[in-house]
């Protein structure tokens, strides 16, 4: 598969697949000493979902994945995987047999070759005989593009090759669900595209995928549903399309920089006066290559694009005329930043006072 191939669209409801819940956590909690890594987490993943677990560093993503995989014991709460209660040893082992996973970086025996490592996993996984195991190992190595390096020991692999071998290992037992922690970590751009395509193919074939990633644009590209964590708490969970709908907005630029704080003040006043559709007003920097107004900042109004006309009328009523007013489709990064209270240096809170100074490195 070429790196430039389009990632196939992932249906939010795969055709022919029952949408039963394959993973459900309730009240899942984990503490390390006095630090709460995961707090009262309730997740629901349905068959065929490509489910993204998002959150800044230390938000509890990896701890959550570890609990799902039986590596870390929860302090409280329950995990149900394929209907099996993970608190029971036998049920946990039965459920985990149906999972393919990479947690953090892939782990293999460095002195063995890729095929030998996979052979070990396959042997344990209970493949019926050596011939079948060899065939399966060859198939997955071919699938991830490592067939040519089958004589090299794992320690000689590049980071990207190690990641590919991890994916091959996860595919080995033809899992019903893949759990991937930063699956594109260490891959070159072409490799990233390939992994995204692979995830799409898996989802299309009915495999449920759960992935944790920092790469928000990647998650937006491949995931159908996401959960956003911060400091162990679940901030949001839902279909990507639903979350993006709530982060769509209107971007406004002014030929006169002095009109920017006036416009911000007018919109904030309207919000405070009861315009509930107007969720927030922020200063934002233009995207690279876009028109840059005097002063550098644009005004972003968090509201459905359907309200563009009302916004224009409201400003015009105050004698403020926009040089540019356009709808801005929401993206996961904006939603994530707004939800977690983080900033990427590209936004600033709006106020009726003067617009803030341009950040260092910002566009003029």
């Amino acid at each position: 598969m070429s790196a430039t191939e389009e990632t196939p669209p992932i249906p939010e409801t795969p055709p022919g697949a029952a949408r039963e819940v394959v993973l459900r956590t309730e009240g899942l909690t984990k503490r390390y000493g006095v630090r709460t890594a995961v707090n009262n987490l309730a997740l629901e993943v349905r068959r065929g979902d490509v489910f993204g677990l998002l959150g800044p560093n230390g938000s509890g993503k990896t701890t959550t994945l570890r609990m799902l995989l039986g590596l870390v014991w929860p302090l409280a709460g329950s995990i149900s995987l394929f209907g099996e209660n993970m608190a029971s040893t036998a049920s946990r082992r039965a459920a985990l047999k149906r999972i393919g996973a990479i947690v953090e970086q892939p782990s293999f025996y460095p002195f063995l070759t890729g095929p030998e490592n996979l052979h070990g996993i396959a042997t344990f996984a209970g493949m019926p005989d050596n011939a079948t195991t060899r065939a399966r190992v060859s198939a997955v190595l071919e699938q991830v593009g490592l067939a040519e390096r089958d004589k090299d020991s794992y320690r000689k692999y590049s980071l990207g090759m190690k990641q590919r071998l991890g994916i091959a290992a996860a595919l080995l037992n033809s899992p019903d669900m893949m759990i991937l922690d930063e699956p594109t970590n260490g891959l070159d751009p072409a490799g990233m595209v390939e992994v995204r395509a692979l995830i799409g193919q898996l989802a299309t074939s009915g495999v449920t995928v759960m992935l944790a990633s920092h790469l928000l644009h990647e998650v937006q590209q491949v995931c159908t549903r996401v959960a956003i964590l911060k400091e162990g708490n679940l901030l949001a969970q839902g279909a990507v399309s639903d979350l993006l709908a709530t982060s769509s907005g209107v971007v406004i630029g002014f030929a006169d920089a002095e009109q920017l704080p006036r416009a911000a003040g007018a919109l904030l006043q309207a919000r405070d006066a009861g315009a509930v559709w107007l969720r927030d007003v922020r200063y934002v920097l233009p995207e690279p290559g876009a028109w840059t107004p005097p002063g550098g900042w644009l005004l972003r109004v968090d509201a459905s694009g359907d309200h563009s006309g009302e916004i224009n009328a409201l400003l015009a009523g105050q004698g403020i005329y926009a040089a540019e007013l356009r709808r801005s489709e929401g993206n996961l990064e904006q939603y994530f930043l707004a939800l977690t209270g983080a900033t990427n240096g590209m936004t600033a809170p709006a106020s009726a006072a003067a617009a803030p100074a341009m950040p260092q490195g910002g566009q003029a």
Partner: protein
Amino acid sequence: MTQATASTATAPAIQGNAFTQTVRLTGWVLFSARRRIMSKVLGGVLLGLFVVIVALVVVAYAVTANSPVNEQNCTSAPVTATESSGGGTTVNGPPPEQCQPLTPAEQQQVRQQRLESVREPVTFPNSLALAGGYTTFIGLILLTILAGAVVGGEYGTGTIRLWFSRGVGRGQLVAAQVIALVLLALLISAVMLALGALVGVTIGPLLGGTLAALPAGSIGEILLYWLAIALTLFAYAVIAFFMATLGRSTAAGIAVPLGFFLFEVIVGPILVAIGMLFQGTTGEIVRHIPDWFLSPNTSYLVSRASESPIALNSVEGNTLGLPHALFVVALYCVALIVLGLVLTQRRDVTD
């Protein structure tokens, strides 16, 4: 990457129950142990050192065979009394020795005695004692290093995650590791005893030794000897297993058991000496603390197992007793395996 759907469609069914999976996992632990560079180095050291020792015996034999016997046959002269100036008699110092050169026949006899003592350790069945003693020292150290590397390496490389996240039971992994250590201990001691026997039936006769017929019951004794040596190796490997599990590292799995081995060797005699300084119960207690160390008990079992009918070793003068030795060795093994199992079962895997 190629299409995912194609390969998932042809994927084989997963088979195997917990027992067969544990057997497979044991096989995997042994395979991964064999494929380590460390195993090859340690195996080379084990065999190479033994070859060096045998070669040294051969050299010593050649030197002895070609050296002149310079000893003289000395006898003490009769005590003579001399008159002193005071009129009494005194004895003037120790009686002088009268030495005669050995006759050629006597020289030949002395040389043969020396050659006999040199070639005896490499002549069967005494060569088994050489191999056994070598294995319970060098083999023990090397298996301990290997055990620490195999168990600790699972944490160091993170492969422990690989197993547990695939539904491998934690008890299954511990069982596989322990079984693998048992098999390695049996294998190493069997190979070394076989090598000892081979040396005994080849090098010994080459040096003029004679192979006597084995007394009845010898096979049973050799088998017991083998098991006792394997148990000694296994007991220290279990310490390595436990420490590697506790410390989640290869370093802990290697350093602590070897340190304990040295501790026993050094501290045991010191405690006995200190105990001699005290009278009564205190002295008794201090003197008997080393009885609860591992090394004296494994040594007892090895000696006891090879005491008769070949008489490779002897427990004469050793007061430990078979029940005590068996109990202490079993206590170490069982307690450390159970503790290792509990640790593995209960702890989070965050490596």
